[in-house]
């Protein structure tokens, strides 16, 4: 199945680019992601738990980044093996362009399933893939646009410790961006 969509993100293209290259962000945004380790250069090992119609499975696989045009374009592709449930393969070509003060994010998603997922879930797979893509980019947008996303929260006035921004975590001491 294939789908194409766009959304405007209220952040500069450089910020969006940095986010998409960050495994922590990906982990937070991929629905059902249990773990994501690795690097942009070598790819990320990921574990994702999902339920597609009647089939629930834990998918393990590798996400690779390719066709990188720094700051503008990247293709994320991956294959997840779900054991008896079958497998899912997909890619998302993401392009970024400045739009007003923000960034116009365009994505073309291509997804395929195999094994039991195909045999039992084909009726719902298009809807499922669309839902997954929508959820991913929605969370991605929320993560970037969240207050304090870009820097240590300036005013920590609330009782609770504010969420640390992803950028801070990325470059700060607590970075877990590399291999664990």
């Amino acid at each position, binding site marked *: 199945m294939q789908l194409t969509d766009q959304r405007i993100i209220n952040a500069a293209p450089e910020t969006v680019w940095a986010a998409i290259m960050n495994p922590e962000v990906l982990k937070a945004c991929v629905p059902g992601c249990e773990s994501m380790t690795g690097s942009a250069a070598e790819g990320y090992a990921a574990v994702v738990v999902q339920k597609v119609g009647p089939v629930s499975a834990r998918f393990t696989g590798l996400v690779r980044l390719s066709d990188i045009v720094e700051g503008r374009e990247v293709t994320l592709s991956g294959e997840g093996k779900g054991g008896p449930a079958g497998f899912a393969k997909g890619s998302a070509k993401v392009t970024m362009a400045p739009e007003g003060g923000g960034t116009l994010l365009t994505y073309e998603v291509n997804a395929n399933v195999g094994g039991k997922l195909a*045999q039992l879930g084909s009726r719902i797979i298009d809807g499922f893939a669309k839902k997954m893509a929508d959820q991913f980019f929605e969370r991605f947008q929320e993560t970037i646009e969240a207050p304090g996303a870009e820097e240590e929260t300036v005013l920590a006035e609330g009782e609770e410790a504010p969420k640390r921004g992803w950028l801070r975590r990325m470059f700060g001491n607590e970075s877990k961006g590399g291999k664990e």
Partner: protein
Amino acid sequence: MPKDHGIGASTKRREDVRFLTGKGVYTDDMRVYGQTYAVFVRSQVAHGRIKSINTGNAAAMPGVLAVFTGEDFKDVGGNPAGWLIKSRNGEAMREPKRPVLAHSKVRHVGDAYAAVIAETYAQAKDAAQQLADDTEIEELPAIVDMAAALGNTSNRVHDEIPDNQCYDWGWIEDNRAAVDAAIKAAPHVTTLELVNNRLVPNAMEPRASIGEYFPGTGDYKLTTTSQNPHLTRLLVAAFVLGIPENKLTVVAPDVGGGFGSKIYHYGEEALVLAAAKKLCRPVRWTAERSESFLSDAHGRDHVTKIELASDLEGNFIAFRTETMANVGAYLSNFATVTPTFLHGTLMAGPYKVPHVYVNVKTVFTNTAPVDAYRGAGRPEATYSLERVVDKMCRELNLDPFEVRRKNFITTDMFPYTTPVALAYDTGNYHATLDKVMEMADVAGFEKRRAESAKRGKLRGMGLSTWIEACGIAPSHLVGILGARVGLYDAATVRVNATGNISVMVGAHSHGQGHETVFPQIVASKLGVPESSVEIVHGDTSKIPFGMGSYGSRSLAVCGVAMDKALDKIVAKGKKIAAHMLEASEDDITFEDGRFSVAGTDKAKTFGEIAFSAYVPHNYPLETLEPGLEETAFYDPANFTYPAGAYICEAEVDAETGKVDILAFYCADDFGNIMNPMIVEGQVHGGVGQGIGQALVENTYYDSNGQLLTGSYMDYAMPRATDVPFYTVDYSCQTPCTHNPLGVKGCGEAGAIGSPPAVVNAVIDALQRGGHTHVTHIDMPVSPSRVWSAING
């Protein structure tokens, strides 16, 4: 008066008592001491190269007794194709080896490449998953579409087959030039391109096998879901594992439907036998429903272009057909004959058309194997013919009933040899057409149509006049055509000392009702009660021999073998009677169960003769052997040619595209009828499957070769609400001229004749409803397809 006994009576099916009360004994019901469980590891990709299989982890798991991969079977034989087809250029078909387990490559989703044997099913299942996780398969691009596969030299299902073509077959090649010329010169040519949709057989009982090995004697036993235990024995013993036939017993107990899919030998059967020997323990396997979808041989899957040349009055001049037929990833046992000699030879239909030529290209793809499914080639032929005839009638504005009538072979023309080499022995196609028109009240259709129109519905009537060749046999004929087996059958009649009778038959009943019908024939012939006769089938250690049940052959071939054995019983009985009555053998007559001396009141009952045969106190042993048991093998002179005319009346809702079948009328000529109720049941079942194909069923692989219709959530089966009450008639009877019972086959008729009747009715409804741009819709004529056709 309806008969209540013997031939022609609607004796109730005695086997139904156990089937309907849960007392049937199927393979999966059997428990064997020390049994172990096999689970197969199946490919999730359609096409791939096996890079590595690490069996260590799986083998070390709890309860695991053995792990097998393709490597273990690479030196044993392959599962062979039963029929050698030659291409137009004289070359033999391409015949890739079909191994027990896939080796080096996997070729369709569901292709088994390993198997795990464990103490429990759960342990085997867990270890099979571990093995799958420890297997590296490099996925290759899938070959799914037939047109793209043909001639594709860079991507091959089998590395040694350069263009994915099995053969390019012409029938009859000598007809080709004349057919081309006739079409070129014809006043009118109707062309139709159509798809005969791929079907999953969906027997109610999934495949299952139990392998046993007896180390004390070196004997093997295979209990399996087979339509033909002797054929399975031959294939697994002689071709695959190299076991002497006399060391292997194959038992096919109660079998819950087959429709063709259980004719064939499958790798799972060889695996459980080989594993049983290795472990010296019984090994059992039962397919999950998913495995059935993925690995049972599928049916149909033709893409066809047919042309009908005629004059402007609708007299047929020529049929020319070009078909691509899918055989899937491997050649199943009858895969090569189904699209050729079971299809191309029927392309004259019941018509006296002078020119016929058929070209079939058979293609390997990364899909499950395709083979014979109820009707096997003949539904494909009938669908092409009856759809193109219907289209021609519309193009020339001719009455479809009259066009059939004027093109039918007439009764004075039999025996009639068609341009595609069949010799029809007898028939009366006008009679069945007249009968079905009367049954369907064709004259009253317009009134019914107007009534439907008032309700906003489009009503149509579709006709199909079909013929088929069945009672699949004559060895001499099939031998000429490339069969690697003979097609006869055998029966042994054993009269016991107390007068009851066991009949061991080579036919295998997996729903047909042999246990009821065969005793009816015995009862009529010997004058004994039906209840004194038992039918024994499905066990190679008990029955003499048999080629099994398919191709509507049980009665017309095996039933006749039994009839011939009964003749021998009567002859022997006369000898015994002559001795007991002190008369000449020539003076003994046999009637109603009594052997009498002609012209006297001296007589012995059948029971007295039977008892004497086993208590031969004063026999002249030089001239009279004790015992009363006879065997006959029967190899017919020809196929049998049942034929008929079907009318479907359907309503289309133009708003939604939904088709409702309101009535379905069948007038069939099956020759003499042994049990009318069972014949009706066979027709009902066949028409139900045909309506399933026409309305709802479809097997869909995506471009990656993934089966998207792999469960009953996505594969639509016909339901009670999809089918009407059928009206069935079999009163037009032209008895078969070359078998003594005068019978023809009836098992596949319904599935052969019905699909075009349904589609013709739908097109008729749309045309009469003003949607004149719709001249064809491919099956299944689902609401979305009908709606899309209406709305351009």
